[in-house]
């Protein structure tokens, strides 16, 4: 087990439910990795690179794996995406790099880029942990060093902080929770990434010189103005807030749980169990809904049904994830609008009443999970003068620079895009860091 000095045994607790869900895509061994890497055609101007939000030079790192230059492969990956390890495991590669592989059009099995990326980055992290050598050496701090505060310790902030630290800048991340990592630690489906894996990667980010302050809620001791006073720039990687509610009768009470709250319990809470849950309903049609449904099915819940208000073809969740969910026994009822949670005499959940095109029906169940989105954390962003929100509550930034209306405040990740992939958050954080450093270089020159 990896030693995680910050968080004690949080990552090792075998009593956490997520530890019962093994990797869906196990780590390649050397032979498997080289064999797969040798299949890569090494395209010129490769489509897989263009499909990656962080533009990892995929053919280059794959060729390095083929030649057994695993450290070099990790450098190629992590120079573009410092969270290349978690992205290798959580990215929907089917719609990104792997989906763009020229083999796909040729009706051949595309290269397993995610598994190869995991192979290289996991080896690099192991090398770091064993003290055998660094993937990258951070530039020493000196007169050029600037100070940046980052709010929220999710992927966007971590990517921004790491990029700054590597160039010798001081990056301090403020996280209100007891664990860093944002959704990488609390929200990613366990069969993709376990908490211990997320923390392992964060240890690497910390080792670059990034400071992470946990339990640091903005407004309690640290305010927007104190951050702006004591730091050269601020990055907002706020993520999203609590699970949204349906606003229907019977919703409040035991047996109805928000999706991200449930996943967080699954991943973090010692001793959390599903109890006698045997018929679960997951409301929603996005990827979080699919994650929850698959997790419940994999944990042995006898009946798992997704309920979606529109037609299946309009679901925002990925088709490949729906396919996997169905193969695990998850049922889907589409065009079903929830009307009320039906409860028994003791307040226990008995059914979800829905309206379908042919009338109202009650779907018997003993647990309901709501995956219909998350609220926006408007209050935090609004504390910074000049930072504006759009109609949905997302922070407005310049799409190239990731700068907000306040010249010293940048933002990225879910709080800007409303909830996309880890890799999009990483791209935001990295670009914000590059823009900060570009601006500082110009200031120094003038």
């Amino acid at each position: 087990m990896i030693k995680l000095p910050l968080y004690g045994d949080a990552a090792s607790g075998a009593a956490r439910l997520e530890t019962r869900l093994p990797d869906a895509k196990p780590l390649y061994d050397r032979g498997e990795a080289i064999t797969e890497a040798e299949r890569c055609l090494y395209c010129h101007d490769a489509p897989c690179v263009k499909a990656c939000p962080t533009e990892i030079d995929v053919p280059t790192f794959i060729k390095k794996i083929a030649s057994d230059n695993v450290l070099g492969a990790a450098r190629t990956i992590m120079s573009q995406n410092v969270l290349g390890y978690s992205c290798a495991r959580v990215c929907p590669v089917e719609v990104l790099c792997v989906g763009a592989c020229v083999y796909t059009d040729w009706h051949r099995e595309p290269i397993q880029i995610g598994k190869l990326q995991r192979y290289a980055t996991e080896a690099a992290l192991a090398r770091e942990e064993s003290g055998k050598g660094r993937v990258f050496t951070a530039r020493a701090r000196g007169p050029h060093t600037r100070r940046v505060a980052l709010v929220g310790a999710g992927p966007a902030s971590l990517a921004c902080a790491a990029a700054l630290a590597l160039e010798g800048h001081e990056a301090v991340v403020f996280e209100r929770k007891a664990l860093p990592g944002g959704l990488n630690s609390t929200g990613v489906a366990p069969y993709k990434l376990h908490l211990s894996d997320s923390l392992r990667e964060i240890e690497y980010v910390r080792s670059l010189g990034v400071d992470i302050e946990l339990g640091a809620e903005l407004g309690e001791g640290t305010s927007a103005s104190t951050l702006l006073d004591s730091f050269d720039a601020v990055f907002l990687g706020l993520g999203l807030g609590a699970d949204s509610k349906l606003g229907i009768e019977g919703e409040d009470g035991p047996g109805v749980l928000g999706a991200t709250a449930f996943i967080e319990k699954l991943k973090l809470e010692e001793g959390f169990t599903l109890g006698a849950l045997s018929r679960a309903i997951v409301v929603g049609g996005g990827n979080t809904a699919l994650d929850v449904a698959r997790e419940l099915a994999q944990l042995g819940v006898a009946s798992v049904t997704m309920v979606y208000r529109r037609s299946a073809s309009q679901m925002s969740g990925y088709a490949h994830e729906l396919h996997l969910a169905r193969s695990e026994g998850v049922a889907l009822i589409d065009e079903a609008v929830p009307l009320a949670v039906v409860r028994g005499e003791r307040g226990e959940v008995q059914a979800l009443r829905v309206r379908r095109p042919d009338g109202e029906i009650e779907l018997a169940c003993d647990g309901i999970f709501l995956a219909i989105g998350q609220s926006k954390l408007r209050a935090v962003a609004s504390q910074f003068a000049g930072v504006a929100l759009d109609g949905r509550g997302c922070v407005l930034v310049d799409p190239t620079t990731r700068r907000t209306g306040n010249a010293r405040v940048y933002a990225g990740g879910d709080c800007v895009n409303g909830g996309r992939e880890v890799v999009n958050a990483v791209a935001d954080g990295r670009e914000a860091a590059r823009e900060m450093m570009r601006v500082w270089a110009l200031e120094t020159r003038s």
Partner: protein
Amino acid sequence: MADLSIDMCGIKSPNPFWLASAPPSNGGEQVMRAFDAGWGGVVWKTIGAPVVNVSSRFGALDYAGRKVAGFTNIELISDRSVEVNLREITAVKKRYPNNALVVSLMVETREQWRDLIRRVEDTGADGLELNFGCPHGMCERGMGSTVGQEPALLQEITSWAKEFAKTPVLVKLTPNVSDILDPGVAAVRGGADGLSLINTIKSIIGVDLDSLVPLPRVGGQSTNGGYCGPAVKPIALHMVGALARDPRTQVPLSGIGGISNWRDAAEFIALGCTSVQVCTAVMHYGYRIVEDMIEGLSNYLDDKGMKSVAELRGRAVPQFREWGELNLNYNVVAKIDASKCIGCQLCYTACLDGAHQCIHVSERPCHAWHGEPDHAQNARLEANAAVLHQHTGATHVRVPVIDERECIGCNLCALVCPVDGCIEMVEVPTDKPYESWNDRVSRG
């Protein structure tokens, strides 16, 4: 169905596929299984001087995820006694009278050659193969390739063997020479009835980068071995072809070197071989591969309307010419079938960096020279504006464009293209006559 039987300088075989003198032909039990599997003949693993072998003794070159593209060994000749080998040869020949059984020999003195040849011929074996090729171990003792590299010595020992032998004598040549014609001519002058080639190439298959010991390892050390397998086929084909077209070496040839399937065999036969010998492919996959070799060669001959394998023999030899005889006025250009292109653009990169900058992708400005064909390296220095090559027709945006005016027809793009039949080299019609370099030189 075409007749596959052959007569190799008097040695008859139901098909041209023989096991080479090597580990697969080490003993009677193996050889009988090989004959049962369909092999037409066997060259029994070399017997003669007493030896002791080391451990380990084989190594392989893997390439791009494929195992054993090349192979090496530091094994010596048979380490079983001559008596045991002769007893087994006698028994096998009795049970398999219709298969060719040739015995490979290696000894030192004239007396040893006389004694061994007489004892071997007493077994009923069909012929002898003199091992003048082994490039490791035995050569340090003055045998094997040491003989093969010294034409006068080779000729003398061959003439001893011919003096003592009643059965046909094949001489197995080493490729570790500057010109294969030197030992080839010497062997024929010594009276050889046929030539077998190539033996293995002196080599180091690799170095273990952890221990820094070359491969294969014998404890903390290694030595040079004999290289063979698919990767050596082009070298063997050239040497076979060189002997086949030289008037001084017009004896039956037994081709050896990287033959793994019927296609390889057909190429050797087309370049003049009567029989072919196989080792590495059998060491990799077993005797069973001969089924496909027989069937594939037979089907090929049928498709080509050839009644026997003899009709294929040497058919490519007249087309194997000196460079100076080639037609300078022949030209081909590359054509991409856009419907097959998968957009990997490997042809673009290969042509840009490895050839003549004639392939373009439409997405980026091209700075190559676009005037009259001019492949000078300083084209970039010319004041030519970047050109955006546009596709004609509604093709996949990643399909590259070939500028046929600039294409010099080198084949590189077609060679690197992963899609079968996507890039073809198409002949450019010309009204210019056949004209070779030699023609120009002789015209002055």
